[in-house]
């Protein structure tokens, strides 16, 4: 037995990346996820419209809310557009009759917190407050989770599978052959990604069809906008896999690295915990995760019917991420091909 123990230790000592991951990673994950895991919501973005906008805004000046806009000249339609476009989660419409509170039902925790807080801030004896929850009136968890989970499943499958692509060539010794063949680095990367992109796209449609039929999740938006977002998202996730593959010497290292990239996406993308509730020190991580933007797009299109003009930021950032990730993969792979000998 001692012979085996000694051999394993010697092997482990030479695989410094694994040792570092075993020792450092748990601490890093605990700290990051500890700060990220927060169901308590504060600074909920709100807008007040109508003649009583100023008075309503004054009532919302608590740590729970952050009044983004006070628009006495605007009406319910403008408030609905702001909620649809994700600018605010709460809108208070004042005017004839009692105030109308509109809530964005895709933000489960924020809505629950807002409902409780609003019950406290409404002055005694005031006109009856009407509350309307938009996009997800029953606050059904599956309606919010399915659009995000579809992305999460694809991140797992896509990144893991493509992360083995180049490393498999390296281990089989065929990388040298590819280096001598008349391929450019970008040809190889595109060739590695293209089949998985098609399979992942089919997979996404399948996941959504099953999700919509089983959980009755609505799809109220434009399919083409969703498809554009999904294509950019898949390019980034598959590109990340290839990038991991180019920096890994063997399949074990590739899988370890892939998990390092995948785990934060579960907790830091806004799928479970609201990004706005995360500590500022870890919130920035969610801004570089493609799933964060895909969730904004998928929930926005499926549940709220957001138009492409309202999704410019997440779409643009996904495109930027795709360029950066694929560019790095190509640069790295070019070095790989040169060093294949």
């Amino acid at each position: 037995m001692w012979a085996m123990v000694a051999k394993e230790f010697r092997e482990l000592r030479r695989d410094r990346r694994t040792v570092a991951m075993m020792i450092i990673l748990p601490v890093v994950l605990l700290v990051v996820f500890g700060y990220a895991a927060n169901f308590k919501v504060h600074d909920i973005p709100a807008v007040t419209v109508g003649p009583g906008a100023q008075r309503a805004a004054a009532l919302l000046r608590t740590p729970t809310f952050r009044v983004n806009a006070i628009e006495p000249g605007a009406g319910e339609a403008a408030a609905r557009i702001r909620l649809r476009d994700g600018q605010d989660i709460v809108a208070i419409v004042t005017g004839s009759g009692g105030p109308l509170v509109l809530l964005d039902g895709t933000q489960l925790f924020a809505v629950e917190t807002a409902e409780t807080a609003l019950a406290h801030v409404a002055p005694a004896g005031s006109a009856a407050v009407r509350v309307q929850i938009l996009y997800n009136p029953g606050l059904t968890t599956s309606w919010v989770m399915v659009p995000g989970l579809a992305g999460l499943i694809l991140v797992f499958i896509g990144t893991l599978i493509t992360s083995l692509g180049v490393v498999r060539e390296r281990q089989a010794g065929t990388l040298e052959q590819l280096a001598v063949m008349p391929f450019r680095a970008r040809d190889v990367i595109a060739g590695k990604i293209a089949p998985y992109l098609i399979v992942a796209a089919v997979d996404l449609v399948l996941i959504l069809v099953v999700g919509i039929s089983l959980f009755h999740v609505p799809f109220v938006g434009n399919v083409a906008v969703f498809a554009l977002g999904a294509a950019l998202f898949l390019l980034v996730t598959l590109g990340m896999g290839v990038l991991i593959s180019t920096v890994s010497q063997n399949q074990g290292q590739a899988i370890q690295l892939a998990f390092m990239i995948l785990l934060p996406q579960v907790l830091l993308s806004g799928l479970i915990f609201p990004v706005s509730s995360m500590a500022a020190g870890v919130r920035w991580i969610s801004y570089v995760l493609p799933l964060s933007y895909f969730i904004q797009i998928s929930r926005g299109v499926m549940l709220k019917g957001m138009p492409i003009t309202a999704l410019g930021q997440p779409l643009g950032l996904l495109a930027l991420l795709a360029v950066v990730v694929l560019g790095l993969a190509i640069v790295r792979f070019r070095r790989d091909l040169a060093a294949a000998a």
Partner: protein
Amino acid sequence: MSWGLEGVSVTRGRTVALAGVTVPVDPSRITVVVGGDGAGKSTCLAVLAGLLEPDAGVVRRPAKDRIGYVPATAGLYTDLTVGENLAFCADAYRLAGPERSRATERILEQTGLAGARRRLGGQLSGGMQRKLAVGMALLHAPELLILDEPTTGVDPVSRADLWRLISRSAADGTAVMVSTTYVNEAARAARVVLLEAGQQLANGSPDDILRGIPGAIGSVRGPGRPGPLSWRRGASWRVWAPAGRLPEGVPPVPPDFDDAVLVAELSREQGR
């Protein structure tokens, strides 16, 4: 046009992998690079294939799409069939139409793999895998064929088949560079370059190298080693006399390529 290396040096860290090596690789000729493990054979081939930039020297090679290369590893996709492996190469080198079909059939016939067209690369024997790898490198009829130890670990029959394949390609006009650890394979070459620790010990035709052996070689039977400049050969000992005067009772024998390699290495050791 002649390809090859001229005065090429490669340093990796503090190790000199190649020191001023010159290897001409002419069309219709086979150039064999012989040497033990770590001699610099693979580095030599990698430089010629364009996988490695030399620190000094001149490299002459055709365009990428006119090179065929087989690495020392399998050199094929084990999860693709024989036909699919060849199809991948045909796609990579943009072979199409009748030219593609002709090239594929020619390689299947020359490698003897026509009957295994639908078998997975991973299910082939070691010898068949190497034949397929060489066939893949030959599919686009390259001007320069570079083979890194194609016969290592291959059974004698498959080795003969592989050499038949390589010779045929040279006969068709291809410039071939092969590395090997098997000294006897050097006799098949038009030119032999003998490497040891990155140094070029000998360079020329097999006959030139044999004629260039300094001194005399003799053979003697007996259990004990006759002296420091001797080596085992079957039941007898080969004895090398650098000055040409063999000891009493040691009759001279015509040297072969094994002797040439050993003499080159002993000369180098003596020169240290």
